[in-house]
């Protein structure tokens, strides 16, 4: 094992990490509020205060339950998304500092994003309501389509860096960022992040046609946690893209920590902006795209990366 390129810091800093993720969530929610207000022609100020007003509203609202709900699993699913997002950011190095210097950090991220499958589905299942359950299965249908391409997209940077340590992957990009020569893997990775955050084109699981789907029966703090969790996943996904594809903390003038945050916020902004731009991808036909187009494309990308690594090595 070569010496690690990043330094693990005291777990107390996890609080700071959580706060940073929270700030990113607020930033994303404010941006979404502004874009929403602009689209509907409401005053900009209503968009600016929307996330906070929305959170206050949900905290004031009563929790509700349904007939014979599977309460434990329902609440576990709803609250779990935030936890998973927090787990994801533990392996993202902020410049040269990281909370968890795992040798298998890339797999760790992948494992976390698979947990989202269970959590979203459980939220749909627990309410004992047809609409929620349909939503839960829609998410699984999307999951079948996006998960394998996402896994193989994560393989490309790991192969190029010959390491599953996130810090090493970031350090391997000191000359040229991975996004420059593995654009397909980057695009598929971004699609995967949008998909596991049940966001934009991948939100039929929360569709208006099934009364809000997975969250059809959620109210009050449960809904706040679920929606906050989606934003947190989106932010964590954007943060993880920085060491994997966007050169980690490298950049001129500013310190590396600032670059990580800037890159994360920019990618997160793109994700948020994208939400309104595209129609939904129907879960029942997405497999076709996922396995017939994305999977071969990303495998080809992996092959190219592997050949380059062998040829250089």
């Amino acid at each position, binding site marked *: 094992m070569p010496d690690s390129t990043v330094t693990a810091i005291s777990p107390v800093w996890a609080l700071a990490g959580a706060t940073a993720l929270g700030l990113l969530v607020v930033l994303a929610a404010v941006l979404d509020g502004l874009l929403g207000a602009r*689209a509907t022609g*409401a005053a900009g100020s*209503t968009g600016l205060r*929307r996330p906070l007003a929305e959170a206050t509203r949900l905290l004031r609202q*009563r929790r509700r339950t349904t*007939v014979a709900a599977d309460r434990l699993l329902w609440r576990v699913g709803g609250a779990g998304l935030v936890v998973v997002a927090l787990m994801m950011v533990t392996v993202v190095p902020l410049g040269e500092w990281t909370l968890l210097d795992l040798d298998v950090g890339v797999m760790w991220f992948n494992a976390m994003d698979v947990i989202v499958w269970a959590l979203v589905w459980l939220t749909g299942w627990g309410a004992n309501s047809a609409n929620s359950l349909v939503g839960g299965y829609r998410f699984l249908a999307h999951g079948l389509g996006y998960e394998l391409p996402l896994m193989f997209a994560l393989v490309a940077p790991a192969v190029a860096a010959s390491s599953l340590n996130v810090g090493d992957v970031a350090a391997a990009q000191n000359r040229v960022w991975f996004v420059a020569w593995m654009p397909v893997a980057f695009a598929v990775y971004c699609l995967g992040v949008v998909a596991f955050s049940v966001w934009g084109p991948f939100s039929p699981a929360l569709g208006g046609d099934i009364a809000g789907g997975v969250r059809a029966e959620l109210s009050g703090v449960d809904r706040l946690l679920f929606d906050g969790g989606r934003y947190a996943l989106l932010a964590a996904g954007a943060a993880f893209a920085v060491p994997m594809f966007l050169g980690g903390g490298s950049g001129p003038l500013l310190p590396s920590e600032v670059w990580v945050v800037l890159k994360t916020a920019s990618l997160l902004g793109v994700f948020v902006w994208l939400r*309104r731009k*595209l129609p939904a991808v129907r879960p*029942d036909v997405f497999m076709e795209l996922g396995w017939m187009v994305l999977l071969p494309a990303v495998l080809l990308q992996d092959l190219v990366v592997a050949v380059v690594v062998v040829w250089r090595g």
Partner: protein
Amino acid sequence: MGLRESLARYAVRSAHVLVAEAPGANWHTRVTVERHVLARGWRLASSPADADVLAVCGVPGTELAGALDLVWDQLPGPRSRVRVDGPDTAATALEQAERDLLDESAQRDDSRSRPTTPDMDHGGDGDGDMDHGDMDHGDMDHGDMDMAPGGIPLAGGGQDRDGLEMDVLHLRLGPVLPYWPAGLVLRCSLQGDVIVEAEAHVVDADPHAPHHGHAAGPIGNDDHDSAAIFAARRCDNAANLLALAGWEEAATRARSLRDRLVDGADAGVAAASVAELSRRVARSRLLRWSLRRVRPLSEADLEAHGLPSHLLGDPRDRLLAILDRARGALHGSVDTSAARREGVTPGVLPHLVTGLDLATARLVVASLDLEPLGTSQEPAHA
């Protein structure tokens, strides 16, 4: 108390409103309520659990009133229920809703008077194992009543489309559902999320009165057959379809076009905007890919079901046709009163949605460009 109050005030700034429309001549009222909701920075709710306010447009009949009571029970609270009799009272009704939501003591009384467990719960708490309702033991034939966890009987079995035994679930779509024709109820039998059987009716429809476009057209409409209103309704239908297809930006655009037409925008300018939206929709490859193969209708299908010619093709073709009709009406090339008469009757819906899953069934219903379904209830005498 001061903090509590200001927090409540802040919370109410982003209240969510579930809009229910009684069938009949309440389209204009519903549109006005939606506009006021958005102008206040409030939002439209997607389900009862998401709503703080239940706004009922028009006078509900007995059947719709029953459904509204069920919906009302599901609002988490603090909650407010207002009735909007006409477009003029939309603003005052929402102000009333705001006052209701801020009235802490009334809300507290309301919450005390509600049962702590949901309605159908028969006391026995902690029956957490009820969920085997969805498991596959259809052929075991147990008496239905003693296996009714939480008061809900277990699903019965039936042959699915592959000839396998599968549970059948009964689900009603409507009458209070976003992006759904006012007053329409579709009772579906589902296997998984596939509709295997369906039956459609309009709530509180008087069986003796003609209640769909064929004979009478929309009854006693306050906004007669003006071309602009015809076009506005088309834009509203297009907005619903776009929203169901998950394309928020295009849906918002269609909705704002609708609003401009209701406000009496210049026909030429509006037609140009419709054309622009139409081009955008036509350009989207993702939409084309997503909507293709969703219950395409051929000439023969149209003839068999007695459907008008503009419903030819898949939902994307029909969406473009909706926008074309809007533009045609604005140019004066579509005879709007004739077009209104050739509407779709609820009777054909079951044929069109059977065999589809919920998502595509919703897309198909929205793509039919329905005229408002008539009723015996009129706001005029309210």
